[in-house]
């Protein structure tokens, strides 16, 4: 029985090495795909900005300075470097508000994804694995809730219960768990048919072992892509809710809230609306680029397609060049 120990150690060491290799491969892949790399860098910068907000922001985002209200950005005529992106109607520094606003977007996005994803995956697992009545109950629930006018209901709930970051998170999660549920159930059903799961069941593996060891690993990459896409959607949704006044409330800072505040000064102070809007757009774009890249590398079919397209485009360009070249030679002669 002693010889099983070194075997297990080799197994574990091998697994860690495999993980290291995979991480290096991922690194290579993302460097190759420039848009994915751009997305990844932008998100990394965003997270760093959100975490280091108290160190980065030149001013307190809620500090009012009525003497310097509506100062334009530093690169314009009346701007000052003290307020690099200008100030709003209460004299609050726009750059600091943008930096602190990233915290809200990231926190709400992550919280909703975790909450909705957790609940959705759980429901999907129950539906797919237990089957029968549970399955039809969950699917019918999903089908019904998907047909609800989600944003309207969210607005009403927020209006009645009172908007705050917590209620926004809960409402957005309630609205958005269904997509995880459907995907998880699909994945579970697909995996359950396979022979290795059947073998595991026959050998006597407990349900939890089958779920964690066989089913969930197949789920991670499509789930991750879905979660990232949902994250982008949630950032936009939170911005819209805050813009309508039913999301994050002052004195907290949210990009959507800033756009709403700046809306009244849109002709006099264009930077109030533009800066938070650019922040939202860049964030969501970065997340979308990352999601595209992730989908590409995790699905071998997509990778093949992209490779084939790349080759086809290259051939077309080469064909065009060689079609032009002989004519030039004739002209020279």
């Amino acid at each position, binding site marked *: 029985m002693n010889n099983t120990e070194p075997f297990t150690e080799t197994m574990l060491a091998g697994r860690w090495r495999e993980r290291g290799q995979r991480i290096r491969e991922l690194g290579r892949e993302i460097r190759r795909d420039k848009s994915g790399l751009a997305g990844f860098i932008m998100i990394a910068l965003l997270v760093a900005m959100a975490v280091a907000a108290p160190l980065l922001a030149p001013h307190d985002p809620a500090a009012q300075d009525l003497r310097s209200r509506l100062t334009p950005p530093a690169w314009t005529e009346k701007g000052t470097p003290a307020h690099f992106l200008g100030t709003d109607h209460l004299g609050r520094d726009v750059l600091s508000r943008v930096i602190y606003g990233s915290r809200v977007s990231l926190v709400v996005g992550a919280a909703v994804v975790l909450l909705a994803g957790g609940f959705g995956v759980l429901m999907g697992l129950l539906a797919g694995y237990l089957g029968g009545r549970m399955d039809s109950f969950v699917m019918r629930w999903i089908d019904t809730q998907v047909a609800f006018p989600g944003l309207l209901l969210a607005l009403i709930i927020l209006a*009645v219960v009172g908007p705050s970051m917590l209620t926004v998170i809960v409402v957005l999660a309630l609205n958005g768990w269904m997509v995880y549920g459907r995907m998880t159930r699909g994945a579970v059903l697909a995996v359950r048919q396979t022979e290795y799961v059947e073998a595991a069941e026959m050998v006597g593996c407990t349900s939890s072992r089958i779920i964690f060891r066989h089913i969930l690993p197949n789920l991670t990459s499509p789930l991750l892509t879905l979660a990232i896409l949902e994250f982008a959607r949630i950032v936009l949704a939170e911005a819209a809710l805050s813009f309508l006044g039913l999301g994050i409330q002052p004195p907290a800072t949210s990009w959507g809230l800033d756009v709403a505040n700046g809306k009244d000064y849109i002709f006099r102070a264009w930077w109030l609306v533009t800066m938070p809007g650019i922040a939202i757009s860049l964030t969501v774009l970065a997340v979308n680029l990352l999601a595209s890249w992730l989908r590409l590398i995790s699905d071998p079919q997509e990778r093949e397609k992209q490779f084939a*397209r790349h*080759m086809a485009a290259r051939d077309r360009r080469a064909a065009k060049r060689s079609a032009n070249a002989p004519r030039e030679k004739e002209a020279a002669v």
Partner: protein
Amino acid sequence: MGRYILKRLWHGIIVILGVTVIVFTVTRMIGDPVKLMLPLEATVEQRAVFEKQLGLDRPIPIQFVEFLGDMARFDFGDSLWQHRPAMEIVFERMPYTLGLSFAAIGLAVLLAVPLGIVAALRPGGVSDRSTVFFSLLGLSIPQFWLGLLLIVVFAVNLHWLPTSGAATPTHMLLPAITLALPALARIVMIVRSSMIDELNRQYVKTAFAKGLPVARVVGLHALRNAGLPVVTLVGWELIRAVAGYSVVVETVFAWPGLGMTAMQAIDREDLILLQAIVFTVAILVVLINILMDAAYTVIDPRLKLS
């Protein structure tokens, strides 16, 4: 086919019931509707009178049954804000939202299909990659921000178009563009990917080998076969436009549709009008769903549902 429609109608009824249960619960049980509807200085006696008037002093199950009965008759009571039947207001505003949404999605489809086809014809090429990039960009821009920017650029600086309201047909242009953009981006992506898949199939190569003109093969044969996922998405986008995004876009452009009315009702805490709006929107969504299902059978005759 008839049985399928009945099944969908039944599903629709359950959805509408579910929505109304939620609205009922939220307004009566979680929120305090009387507190919201009465002015702050109302005395206890005035509250009691108001409650009796609205039937809020009766036990919840009875209230709910009454509510269901009212709903079936489309009678939500008088709007607290405008003091006339809430459904009347809803029917007045509904055409604005429907018109804007259909115009927007129609615009999106009209632009997206050619763009997607052009991108699919040369996959990996410049037009393809730029289409994908601009689609991602279009998905990433918040609609309320886009609307504001369009107002500033086109209405204020260039004076080409009006800023807000719904007086003339040109008033619909900017809101329709704003509502259309994310839908445009998503539809382009799906047209492109469906067409790429379709154009790689054997029958397309056979058709080209036969010498059929490119336009005919792509536009007639490939497009029809690639159409199903596109129609699914278009229906989904229409629903999202009517039930969701219209709130934001209508608010930005002061377009007098159901979305803006909902925001106004929320501002004035007019729960009766809100209930009427949510109910109507739920019905609209169900109807659009059924319409889309019927459209499938037209597009793909194999899907004659039995």
